[in-house]
């Protein structure tokens, strides 16, 4: 995509964004007892994240295990209180609301979890699971209408409403994930936060669920935060991509820019490591295999967190934490690197 033709909306939306994270930080204390002798370590799970979700779009959040994706999910869902920073849903900080009001406002932002086996109560039937949100928010719909809406939801996600009285264990993995999506849609939310929603599924079924997400978005104008470790999956659903490494976003831009011309060395390595389902790509030059493991978030490296594995690392990377470049400097994206690619 040529740089000079702005094809989409800017990364920073004018007006009140649908979902916004500002300077989000979450530190955990781990190990040791309150009065024990062992020193307690601080885990910097999320360490300064700024995000904006535009209406009707999908923000893909990519990173490896331990990068803080799950913590960020919990923060965005207002399930945990951040150490500092705020999450704003339509300009409103949910955690600042009184608890009854917070519970009411949760209906705008819903969660789809990774594991379709543990996210459904084994004792409930499909109908009860999908109806649960309405049983919690009883003011939305009279009792009589809830069952018929639940049936409609089952139909909408491609499940047979005739199976409404089955229990989760009687469904396959893909069908369970559809159930989870139906439940998330029950309150007609504006935002779905999807935490690795297809990574537990087999390829043939995964494609069904990815398409379902896309169709639901077209139908209802939903906005997604789509968290995944699989870059190929994210490429098929996201409009914008943010790459996380050790609690920070190292690169954030629109999909085509990030995938075709990654600027951060980590993004390049990540893309290069995805196995290509085409034997022709074998032995292609320029394949980057990173050495070592991601460092522990209890003892993050100084400066740029990636410098321990980076082939471009210089002295400045060890000393100074890079600040995100302004959006225009390297195409339509922000990158936190002292030596970004172009």
């Amino acid at each position: 995509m040529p740089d000079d033709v702005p094809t989409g909306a800017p990364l920073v939306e004018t007006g009140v964004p649908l979902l916004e994270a500002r300077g989000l930080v979450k530190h955990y204390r781990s190990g040791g007892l309150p009065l024990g002798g062992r020193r307690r370590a601080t885990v910097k799970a999320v360490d300064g994240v700024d995000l904006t979700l535009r209406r009707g779009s999908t923000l893909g959040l990519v990173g490896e295990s331990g990068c803080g994706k799950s913590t960020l999910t919990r923060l965005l869902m207002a399930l945990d209180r951040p150490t500092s920073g705020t999450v704003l849903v339509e300009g409103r900080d949910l955690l600042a609301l009184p608890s009854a009001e917070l519970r009411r406002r949760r209906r705008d932002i819903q969660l789809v979890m990774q594991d379709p086996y543990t996210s459904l109560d084994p004792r409930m039937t499909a109908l009860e699971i999908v109806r649960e949100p309405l049983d919690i928010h009883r003011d939305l719909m009279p009792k009589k209408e809830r069952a018929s809406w639940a049936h409609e939801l089952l139909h909408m996600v491609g499940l047979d409403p005739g199976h409404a009285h089955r229990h989760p264990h009687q469904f396959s993995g893909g069908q369970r994930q559809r159930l989870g999506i139906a439940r998330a849609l029950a309150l007609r939310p504006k935002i779905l936060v999807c935490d690795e929603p297809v990574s537990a599924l087999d390829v043939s079924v995964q494609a069904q669920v990815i398409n379902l997400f896309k169709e639901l978005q077209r139908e209802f104008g939903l906005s997604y935060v789509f968290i995944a470790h699989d870059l190929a999956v994210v490429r098929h659903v996201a409009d914008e991509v943010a790459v996380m490494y050790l609690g920070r976003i190292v690169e954030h831009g629109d999909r085509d820019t990030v995938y075709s011309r990654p600027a951060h060395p980590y993004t390049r390595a990540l893309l290069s490591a995805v196995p290509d389902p085409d034997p022709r790509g074998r032995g292609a030059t320029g394949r980057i295999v990173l050495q070592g493991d991601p460092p522990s978030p209890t003892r993050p490296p100084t400066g740029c967190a990636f410098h321990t594995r980076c082939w471009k690392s210089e002295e400045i990377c060890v000393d100074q934490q890079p600040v995100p470049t302004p959006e225009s400097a390297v195409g339509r994206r922000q990158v936190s690197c002292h030596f970004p690619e172009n």
Partner: protein
Amino acid sequence: MTDAALSPEKLGAQGTSTEASYQAPQGTWHELRRRPVFLLTGGCALLLLLLAAAPGLFAGWFGHGDPTVCELGHSAEGPAPGHPFGYDVQGCDLYANVIHGAGASLGVGLLATGLGLAVALVLGCLAGMAGRIVDSVIARITDVFLGFPFLLGAIVVLNSFTTRDVPTVAGVLALFGWPTMTRVVRASVRSVREADYVVMARSLGASQWFIVRRHVLPNALTPVLVLATITVGGVIVAEAALTFLGVGLQPPSISWGLQLAGAQNSFQTHPHLLIFPGLFLSFTVFVLITFGDTVRDALDPRGR
């Protein structure tokens, strides 16, 4: 982009053709029904309950069936026609007495376990769901009670009562029986609390009470119910032991413990006084514990 409408035919293609071919894992009940041990012990447990609830149905099978009609002239005589278990020291029909004894034994067992279970559910849920301070306080109290030797504690407390009927003995046994169950409830509440579907419910905006009622209690109940079944057996043994030692039930209650206590001076000369109540007691305890174990095995996926 032309096909904006959600077409269930396309999305739900899996809803039709192969849905039926997906095999559902079998449920616990299905698994249990195929176990002969479960059916056998379950049947025996039901029979024992019937025996305890309506001893009259069984007591009159051989003779008059009234445990209080006694002829001192037959004192401690062995089995005779119409009196298959013989007579006790008072000359009462031992068969009728043993049948009627089931009521007290099972009564104490069920009542004590029920009381303990109720306390355990309340405290366990509280400890599991509330904050760390409540949890620690409940945990320490539980530890203190667990620290008492069960029987010794019961002996001391029971000694301070002058009349000891089924409710008092059950109450005292419950006092020392709830801690173990509380621990089990707390542990399962905590594991359910961390479950994804509870996080889900929280993110949906569910209140704490809704979560407890809808998710936590139903899922935490099963393991403690299994433990309770096994506990009933243990409580029955404890009741018999306490009564045997003279600090449990008192006449005019009829219980296996009392019958064993009455037999202690003469069982060498009249062994039937010990054998018949003893057999019933052992059988009851065996049935309950085996029943509980079978259910636990079926519920525990690691056991499969």
